[in-house]
């Protein structure tokens, strides 16, 4: 193992990899710092460029973009009261009051330090947890995989939107679109035109769904941005301030790792949970929301603590836990690598290189944040009216360059419109995307199971692993229905006195 690690270290410590990581971190921080631009957008926009890079460099670039954008969200949250990403929403609560007090630089420093610590702990957990999980997953056959995917989709469908029903509708549309083209036995499905025979490309669908709706929304609704931007001010973070927040940073990191490793939950929930725990247990709990550094530490360590952990189910089981890891799964497949237990058998060199590279990226994040936080603060003020149209043009060029196919450009634009309509109808996009990516594997495992069992459906309930995932799916659906029922009852109770 140590020899393989040493070899992986040598493979990662090359100039192209360092350039990819540095570019990814800086690019991610810039995109994350711009309100309206998300980490998902950063990763999907970079996807076409990874076609021309070696597999490990590509994945490191995408991981660096993810980490950079998660931290970058805190810059606009602190300085312009607009979280660049959803996971930085908690950072606004204490970050902006600190910036108003002339301590914006201090708040940014705390965000950076806690992000880096959370990120590092998350990477270490990835290193130690992914392999045992993958070894366990080697005992899993097609029926168990089918159940696991059903479980993951159920979680994503119920958590990402405000209603389980809308989440499942979104997942069904994604699964249906994934069937377009040739199936595993050579039959064509929904091949309305000649171009559709090869199916819909993952990249145009992803970029269309996540990058374009923001542009269409900007054109249709023409929102105004009125938040005044604060200056950096006091920049120093003292040792006493750091020590005072260390407990929250460590707790937040562990919360991030645990919630990040569960498919569907993600950094936003982790940040809110960590923030509320810090507020409950801190001796300065009553000052939270008025400019408390510990609040920023709790929120930022938790959201960055998810970054490495979300890759645990992706690498070990081949199941993406959120949209960004869904895009990364697409990137793995583009390079001929299939995440899951077999990756640890057939491509262990790449896996170790990835682990080492991900650890390096924490260091890059710290350096990038330290050197250029002030410059990033200016970038967060770029008007969307200039930025979003240019992003569309970049997407169009990027998509066309993948296969020199005008059909892919059409798919991109159509998916952008579909994404906007889904946004208007409150249908969450995350289940759609994960279902679209998992769709072929989901169907493949179902058809293999049916073929093995000669059409007997009981094959899905023959092992304790299948039963376990089935029970978890049912439990999760029951809990979601209970939650929605309670919400509905509370709403009715609130409405009753006014009526």
């Amino acid at each position, binding site marked *: 193992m140590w020899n393989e690690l040493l070899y992986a270290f040598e493979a990662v410590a090359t100039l192209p990899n360092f350039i990819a990581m540095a570019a990814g971190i800086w690019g991610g921080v810039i995109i994350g710092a711009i309100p309206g631009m998300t980490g998902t957008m950063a990763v999907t926009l970079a996807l076409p460029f990874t076609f*021309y890079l070696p597999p490990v460099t590509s994945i490191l670039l995408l991981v660096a973009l993810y980490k950079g954008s998660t931290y970058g969200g805190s810059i606009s949250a602190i300085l312009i009261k607009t979280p660049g990403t959803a996971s930085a929403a908690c950072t606004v609560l204490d970050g902006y009051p600190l910036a108003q007090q002339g301590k914006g630089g201090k708040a940014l420093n705390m965000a950076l330090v806690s992000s880096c610590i959370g990120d590092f702990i998350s990477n270490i957990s990835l290193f130690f947890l992914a392999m045992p999980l993958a070894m366990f997953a080697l005992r899993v056959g097609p029926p168990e995989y089918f159940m696991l995917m059903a479980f993951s989709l159920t979680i994503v469908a119920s958590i990402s939107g405000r*209603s389980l*029903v*809308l989440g*499942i*509708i979104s997942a*069904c*549309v994604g*699964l*249906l679109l994934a*069937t377009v083209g040739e*199936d595993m*036995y*050579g*039959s*064509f*499905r*929904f*091949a*309305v035109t000649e171009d559709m025979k090869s199916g819909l490309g993952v990249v145009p669908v992803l970029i269309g769904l996540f990058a374009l709706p923001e542009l*269409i929304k*900007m*054109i*249709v*609704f*023409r929102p105004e941005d009125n938040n005044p931007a604060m200056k950096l001010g006091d920049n120093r973070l003292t040792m006493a301030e750091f020590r005072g927040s260390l407990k929250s940073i460590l707790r937040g990191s562990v919360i991030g790792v645990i919630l990040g490793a569960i498919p569907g939950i993600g950094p936003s929930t982790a940040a809110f949970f960590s923030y509320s725990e810090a507020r409950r247990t801190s001796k300065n709990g009553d000052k939270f929301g008025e400019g408390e550094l510990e609040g920023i530490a709790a929120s930022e360590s938790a959201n960055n603590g998810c970054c490495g952990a979300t890759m645990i189910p992706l690498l070990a089981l081949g199941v993406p836990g959120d949209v960004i890891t869904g895009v990364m799964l697409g990137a793995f497949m583009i390079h001929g690598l299939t995440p899951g237990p077999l990756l640890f058998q057939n491509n262990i060199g790449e896996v170790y290189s990835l682990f080492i590279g991900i650890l390096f990226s924490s260091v890059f994040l710290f350096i990038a944040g330290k050197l250029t936080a002030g410059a990033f603060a200016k970038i967060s003020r770029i*008007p969307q*009216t*200039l930025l*979003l*149209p*240019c992003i*569309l*043009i970049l997407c*169009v*060029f990027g998509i*066309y*360059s993948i296969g*020199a196919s*005008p059909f892919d*450009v*059409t798919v991109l*634009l159509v998916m952008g*419109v579909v994404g*906007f309509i889904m946004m208007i*109808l*409150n*249908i969450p996009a995350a289940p759609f995307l994960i279902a679209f990516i998992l769709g072929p594997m989901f*169907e493949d495992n*179902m*058809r293999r199971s*049916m*073929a093995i*069992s*000669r*059409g007997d459906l009981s094959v899905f309930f023959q092992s304790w692993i299948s039963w376990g995932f089935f029970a978890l799916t049912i439990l999760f659906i029951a809990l979601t229905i209970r939650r929605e029922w309670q919400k*509905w009852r509370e709403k*009715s109770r609130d*409405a009753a006195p006014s*009526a």
Partner: protein
Amino acid sequence: MTPNRDFYTGLIATALFALVLFVLIPIYVKVPSFIPGFAPPPNMWPRVVTCVGLVMGILAIIFAIPKMREARGEPVTTFGQTLYRNRKLIVRFGAVLIGFAVFTYAIPAIGFVAATILLLAYLFLMSGDYSRKTWMIGLTIVFPILLYLLFTNITHTPFPEGHLFSALSADFMTLI
């Protein structure tokens, strides 16, 4: 009762999945005469997915009814009134669709770069913020050309030149 957004979502989803289940699958998913082993036919999975989607669409409509009952005290706005009130937004959305459609058809006609320049100009115009005119004009011309040079030199992508320009340049060459 005032129909709310969830009601329309359920309605659209139900209509979409019904269309796929009863029209598109029978026409566009061909079942081969021989399937090896005991593998299910290619239309089984799309049928299962659309059935689940159809049930969820109906459930979305059913769950929207209590919310509509709650809102019965509020002034009723008809579908036509809602459309009229949001006419500006609908026109802008329609304009985006037209812009995208024209762009798709313009690529083979006038070439990739010219089409992207036109699309970028159109999007800047549609943004409604004209406070940075110089930036807009500069970016409209420079950005697509820069990307064209980047992609042709680094990834060697053959971008379409457009048959109109090709025909014009051929005529020009003949004249020379």
